[in-house]
């Protein structure tokens, strides 16, 4: 066992690093696009603070469209554009574009559902004080939803770890790639198990850190 770890440690560490790179980068970028998208869907719905049915329908349709394409197919289909943007079609960098495209609509739905949890009374109160739509978004909707948004962030990040493993299959590297190459193609089960354990650890760390943070910052907890 020790010998095995010694032999594969550099490879595993590099893969772990690649996985973390893909996850962190794509999560951040997915929020850059997904957060405004989710807010927009929420505010434009019927009965929202700025109803706009056509825009709402188009955005919703677009989100559903991308979300209904299986990620493995999406990453292959987007390969030409990914190559153009990253300059290469292998390695973790090449997968970022596809990961963001897949995750942004997912993030948008996560954000939307966090906002849905809010009591609409607070929004009405802000309206009676003369708050503009933008002020309602930046000073009421988002700050009041922070604990829920943080929980959503952990779910999104963990989903992206899963996606990054799939990206590994088509040449992006990372722990998923190692698991498939060694475990499936070379019948080296032990390497696969180690990668699986590593992924489990990463997921657990993300989940508990974010959950703790969400509890800590939520002022509704006395």
């Amino acid at each position, binding site marked *: 066992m020790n010998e095995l770890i010694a032999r594969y440690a550099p490879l595993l560490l590099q893969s772990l690093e690649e996985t973390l790179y893909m996850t962190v980068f794509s999560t951040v970028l997915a929020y850059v696009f997904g957060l405004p998208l989710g807010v927009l869907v929420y505010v434009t719905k019927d009965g929202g603070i700025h109803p706009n049915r056509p825009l709402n329908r188009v955005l919703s349709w677009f989100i559903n469209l991308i979300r209904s394409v299986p990620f493995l197919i999406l990453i292959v289909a987007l390969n030409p554009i990914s190559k153009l943007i990253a300059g290469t079609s292998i390695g973790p960098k090449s997968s970022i574009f596809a990961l963001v495209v897949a995750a942004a609509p997912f993030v948008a739905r996560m954000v939307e559902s966090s906002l849905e949890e809010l*009591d609409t*009374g*607070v929004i*009405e*109160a*802000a*309206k*009676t*004080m*003369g*708050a*503009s739509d933008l*002020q309602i978004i930046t*000073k*009421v909707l988002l*700050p*009041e939803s*922070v*604990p829920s948004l943080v929980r959503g962030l952990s779910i999104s990040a963990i989903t992206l770890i899963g996606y990054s493993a799939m990206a590994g299959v088509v040449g992006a590297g990372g722990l998923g790639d190692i698991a498939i190459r060694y475990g499936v193609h070379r019948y080296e089960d032990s390497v696969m198990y180690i990668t699986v354990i590593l992924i489990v650890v990463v997921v657990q760390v993300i989940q508990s850190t974010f959950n703790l943070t969400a509890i800590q910052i*939520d*002022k*509704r*907890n*006395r």
Partner: protein
Amino acid sequence: MITIQNLTKTYHTKSGEVEALRGISAEIRDGDIFGIIGLSGAGKSTLLRCIALLETPTSGSISIDGRDLSSLRGRQLTEHRRQIGVIFQGYNLLMQRTVSGNIAFPLEIAGVPKAEIRRRTEELIHLVGLDGKADAYPSQLSGGQCQRVAIARALANNPKVLLCDEPTSALDSFTTKAILDLLSDINQKLGVTIIIITHEIGVVKQICSQVAVIESGRFAEYGVAAEVLAAPRSVAARQLIGVGGAL
């Protein structure tokens, strides 16, 4: 002076049209404490939402000092909203902000300078009797204290009118009395006109100078509170007073 003229509001629902308000007219003088009392479904919440500009009336008008509110748009609407403070049955506080953060909120969105916000917030905390609670969060407060925060927040921009939507319905009788005392105090000290929507006759008895009894979207009776309470003419008023008397 608030003038409500022949106000109607019809909702279009799947099961047909619902006439929530069917021609409400009233004159509310400056400095009055005007109670609007009625049973559930009588239309009192719709009326409040129309005065608070959260709903657009189907017809009729509401004007403050001769200015029709329905004609207001954009900036004027915003300015006007600052003349009306609203408090709600469920308080509607920002749960992630402290007491002072909540009271500062309407001032922040009005673009008041920071130093002025701090001064005004301290003043309001004192006014509503929450000294020492500035840094507490709503989840750490009792219902009565939350309503005090809501009152302070509603008064932050020096409104002319304070609209109260069932402000004490979620509170016990002791706390109800304390909150009503506070409202009456504010009415006297600041000269703010107060409109209270309620289903509790006790609220009218304790602080209202004028009262309107609302039933099926109309005012069944309307006049000086003491007179209506002493000699109710309408069936609706008798029912409400009877129910109140039994308690």
